[in-house]
């Protein structure tokens, strides 16, 4: 009897040890429970304390407030019906929930509405990067025929006729008046103020236990490792500020190539931030995927052929079902804490 018990105990021990060995060798064990960030992770992904801003347009409360009022004012469009916030809706991750944007006269446009979150940190604006600064970007959609379709000279007259605006411009930009320049500067100041809040990932980076669940922690390892998402989505803003053709075969949009006619740029678009990405479905510049899992599947198959110019960083990944799930879980851990956005009361004519 005693011998039998000893045998059983030994057998149990042997099974337990082999299970431990299997667990130790399995890739998922690598990101097991208490694995915290490395020093390199902290260095690379920690959010900066300061918002970059140009010398000739420092952010002040008055400038941010004026920009916010302009941002939410539909009178900035030709129809007086569309504001910047119509498409860049804070309730929808500063996007619009549509596959591609809907502009003047309900026209469906060719590219999706990008979030304005963390644009302060972007080196290029628009999907094709045709504007280097927010100041150079801000007036584009107001004027564009397909978007807000507003002649800027008329807009200046309209705003000047509203006393509240005259005062706000004077406070924000003393002596500069209501002009294309000050409109662009004010909107840029507001946009710069829209930065990502602290996410579970940021708390995990700080060493807060349990801030990210195990699946998300494993997902981060896949993100950096097997899936090599960091080839483009790198750094605290998860963007290389670069342009890539990631194999979306649906349309003839040449993207960055129309700005810089270099072969590698055919069908290439700007790498967007991944902060709050789970709030901004549908995905990609053409809005062709509805869920992050569809996006992950796209990358897992190495993208599809597009203009014979697929970015060579795109490769079949061979991710398991669990790895794909972990990756999506990690992307959800990049959602920042809810940010209350108040809608301003717009100045009116007397």
């Amino acid at each position, binding site marked *: 009897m005693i011998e039998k018990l000893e045998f059983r105990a030994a057998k149990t021990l042997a099974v337990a040890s082999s299970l431990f060995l299997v667990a130790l060798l399995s890739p998922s064990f690598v990101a097991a429970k208490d694995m915290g960030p490395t020093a390199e992770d902290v260095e690379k992904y920690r959010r900066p304390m300061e918002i970059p801003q140009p010398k000739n347009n420092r952010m002040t409360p008055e400038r941010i407030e004026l920009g916010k009022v302009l941002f939410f004012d539909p009178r900035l469009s030709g129809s007086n019906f569309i504001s910047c916030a119509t498409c860049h809706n804070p309730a929808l991750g500063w996007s619009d929930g549509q596959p591609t944007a809907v502009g003047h006269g309900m026209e469906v446009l060719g590219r999706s509405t990008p979030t304005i979150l963390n644009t302060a940190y972007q*080196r290029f604006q628009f999907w094709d990067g045709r504007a280097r600064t927010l100041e150079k970007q801000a007036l584009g959609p107001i004027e564009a025929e397909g978007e807000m379709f507003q002649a800027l000279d008329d807009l200046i007259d309209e705003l000047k006729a509203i006393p509240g605006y005259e005062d706000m411009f004077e406070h924000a930009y003393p002596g500069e008046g209501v002009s294309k320049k000050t409109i662009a500067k004010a909107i840029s100041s507001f946009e710069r103020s829209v930065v990502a809040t602290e996410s579970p990932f940021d708390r995990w980076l700080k060493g807060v236990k349990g801030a990210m669940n195990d699946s998300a922690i494993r997902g981060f390892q896949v993100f950096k490792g097997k899936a090599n998402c960091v*080839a483009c989505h790198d750094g605290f803003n998860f963007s290389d500020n*670069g*342009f890539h053709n990631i194999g979306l075969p649906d349309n003839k949009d040449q993207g960055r190539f129309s700005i810089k006619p270099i072969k*590698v*740029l055919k069908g290439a678009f700007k790498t967007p931030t991944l902060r709050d990405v789970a709030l901004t479905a549908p995905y990609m510049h053409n809005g062709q995927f509805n869920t992050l899992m569809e996006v992950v599947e796209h990358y897992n198959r190495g993208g599809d052929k597009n203009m014979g110019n697929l970015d*060579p960083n795109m490769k079949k990944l061979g991710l398991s079902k669990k790895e794909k799930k972990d990756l999506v879980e990690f992307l959800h851990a990049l959602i920042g804490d809810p940010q209350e956005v108040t809608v301003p009361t717009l100045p009116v004519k007397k």
Partner: protein
Amino acid sequence: MKTATIYNILLVITTTVLALGAEAAEITVLQQDKSFVKDGEQIEVLTVKAGDTINFQNDDPFFHNVFCLSDLETFDLGSYPKGESKPVKFDKPGVVEVECAIHPQMYMEVTVE
């Protein structure tokens, strides 16, 4: 007289060849952390002599490109991975802008003297 002339011509040719040979340099510029780097330092300007060659070597774990669309020179080296290097010989004096199309913050001006 004739011999002396030939001797002089030969001397001039030899000196010229030697001088050119000594002057034409090979310079390595790394593409590192999405910057152009020479001798361990990030650079945005570089002065070379006409005839010099710059080897653009990718040192990042992803693909880079090098192109130039200046009036003086145009070239596009395509995209290439870590460890690979591509040479460009700069013959014409002037200033040319060199960029990476994939990561446009990588930008430098090459002054060819």
